[in-house]
């Protein structure tokens, strides 16, 4: 790793919470019961710098997409703060929100449903410029062409084609171009390659990588495919039930995971060269519902190492090494000292 001074933080979440209200039943409502809260995102701290692609992994329902949508303010967080270039934008509205949305863009998973089939590629990419009233027709045209160039789609041949004429990979690149045309500083890429065939995934990942470097973008790359994260991300956070359970450099997380959940997640990835020794603990049950979060550590109901402490006291994210934090009592020196029954799992790097 090079020792250049760190680039400035673009986006920062501080103890961010986004809770939704579960629809209450009619009887419940008549009885005056409070609707229950779905704690989709429950206290997340995270900072992404310029030129950085930050990976966010976790299973469905872990809150990764809620975090992405809260950061670009498609959801208004119910607690905590979001700072953009040092400015608190958690609850901005009106013009300030519109300005922020110009600077923070999102790319969705499904390029088959995120592009309007009745518009041409040129119109699709121009639309955000019209919404934000940027430039005249000629200026907009110039920006559209530049955006297409960034995603390596020849403008001349494609401006007047429709999404149905394009392959999945090309569509996803058009979706990226549409996000880029407003010259954002922060992009959330929510599972941008999971609908694409393996043979073309790399082309989209490569573009994201180049863009963050060349345009100085801060990118939040959300994926359930942990293997792809290693190719483009410098830092990775692992989410479970609305919280970050482990965070560190991509290399640390992918080669020496510490949290029992992360370890299991890594062991679940099949390899082209089968490793007979790949250790796989069968986890009990499924991810609990965010309506019904277990007390203590949220992973304790499935964790093979859980002790009484884990089912009663909630662990904090504690640093275990430089730039590596884990939310697990097993790595908390204080907890281990007072609870001898805690036996740390052997690290996979060892």
């Amino acid at each position: 790793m090079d020792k250049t001074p760190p680039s400035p933080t673009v986006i920062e979440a501080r103890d961010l919470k986004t809770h939704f209200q579960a629809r209450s039943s009619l009887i419940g409502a008549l009885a005056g019961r409070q609707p229950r809260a779905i704690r989709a995102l429950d206290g997340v701290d995270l900072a992404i710098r310029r030129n950085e692609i930050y990976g966010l992994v976790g299973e469905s329902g872990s809150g990764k997409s809620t975090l992405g949508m809260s950061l670009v303010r498609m959801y208004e967080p119910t607690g905590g703060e979001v700072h953009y270039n040092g400015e608190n934008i958690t609850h901005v509205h009106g013009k300030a929100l519109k300005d922020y949305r110009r600077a923070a863009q999102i790319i969705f998973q499904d390029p088959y449903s995120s592009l309007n089939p009745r518009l041409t590629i040129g119109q699709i990419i121009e639309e955000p410029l019209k919404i934000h009233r940027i430039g005249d027709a000629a200026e907009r045209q110039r920006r559209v062409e530049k955006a297409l160039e960034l995603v390596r789609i020849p403008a001349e041949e494609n401006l007047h084609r429709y999404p149905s004429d394009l392959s999945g990979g090309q569509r996803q690149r058009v979706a990226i171009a549409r996000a880029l045309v407003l010259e954002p500083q922060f992009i959330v890429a929510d599972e941008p390659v999971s609908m694409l065939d393996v043979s073309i995934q790399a082309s989209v990942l490569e573009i994201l990588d180049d863009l963050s470097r060349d345009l100085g973008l801060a990118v939040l790359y959300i994926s359930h495919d942990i293997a792809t994260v290693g190719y483009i991300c410098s830092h990775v956070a692992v989410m479970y039930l609305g919280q970050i359970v482990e965070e560190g450099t991509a290399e640390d997380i992918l080669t020496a995971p510490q949290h029992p959940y992360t370890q299991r997640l890594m062991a679940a990835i099949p390899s082209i060269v089968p490793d007979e020794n790949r250790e796989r603990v069968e986890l009990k049950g499924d991810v609990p519902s965010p309506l019904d979060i277990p007390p203590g550590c949220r992973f304790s109901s499935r964790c093979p190492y859980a002790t009484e402490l884990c089912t009663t006291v909630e662990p904090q994210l504690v640093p275990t090494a430089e730039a590596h934090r884990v939310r697990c009592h097993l790595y908390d020196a204080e907890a281990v000292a007072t609870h001898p029954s805690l036996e740390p799992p052997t690290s996979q790097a060892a």
Partner: protein
Amino acid sequence: MGALAKLNERLRAKPAAHMLVERLSIAYQTPRGPFRAVDDVSFEVAAGATLGLVGESGCGKSTVVKSLMGLLPEGTSVSGRALLNGTDILGLSERALSDVRWTKIALITQSAMNSLDPVYCIGDQITESILAHERVSKAVAWARAEQMFEIVGLPGSRLTEFPHQFSGGMRQRAVIAMALSLNAGLLLADEPTTALDPIMQDQIMSRIRSIHADMRRSMILVTHDIAVVAETCETIAVMYAGEVVEAGPTAQVLQNPRHPYTMGLQNAFPKLPVRGQSRMPLISIPGTVPNLLHPPVGCRFAGRCPFATDLCRSEAPAKLSNSISQSAACHYQDRASEFRAIAQKASTWRHKDG
């Protein structure tokens, strides 16, 4: 329990199936002409063996599965043979098919949500298929269903529950239990874990592997994930644009691919890093799959292949027969080791991006 023991014994006595598919071609009828989804495909699954049928979306792998289960839409033209223990099962009547489905070939589908009926409890759905084919009492069928639940790691008491009460992973297990209930000689698993989270995927695949090891049924695993095949199947057949382009023992094919498409797939497949080791960048395969309404004259991969010559563009390589040793449908098989070395460089694949 006497009746259950007898049923179990009868089912256990079923031999694993031998499946031989020869020159299978399937064309869907569309308003714009025939769509040649599968073209001259041959493969063989020995009794008790596993075959991984891999390829990307639109390569025809699911169409092959549908033809074996007799699920193709009416009017689809099918040629070739699919011999199950020596009997051709292509083009059977619905009546004859009911003797094949579930008793001889069982299907584990991709979306467990859609293959379970929401208004019946899971136990009823499993016993229904047992009762349709075996003369036993409902109580015996239920007891058999309980045993199947145990095999897939679900408590038998939950048979009385409905699909919506199950999580995605549990539903997928229920579908597997159903597929196992008549101990069919051949299991067809069509993307059995695609819609699931990674940990659940892994747990279900381990389960399928241990079931295969215990019961020694023959199995065709259809998937887009070459790593899952690497860990599960003895042999592999790689499909591209309706054809099998490479086949053979899995480890051999994946370690020393002979078809440029297999080489490209491997380069594009994301791998976990190994600490302290530098690793190859991901390389995508440029271009797109040809339109099978008008398949190209020559090799179907020629338009994306970095090694393609005029020969490739004008003449299709010989189709693969169902040989057991590694083979590839490529004019330049003899230069495979030379190609493999060049294929590992990103620049090789960059010549035609688009």
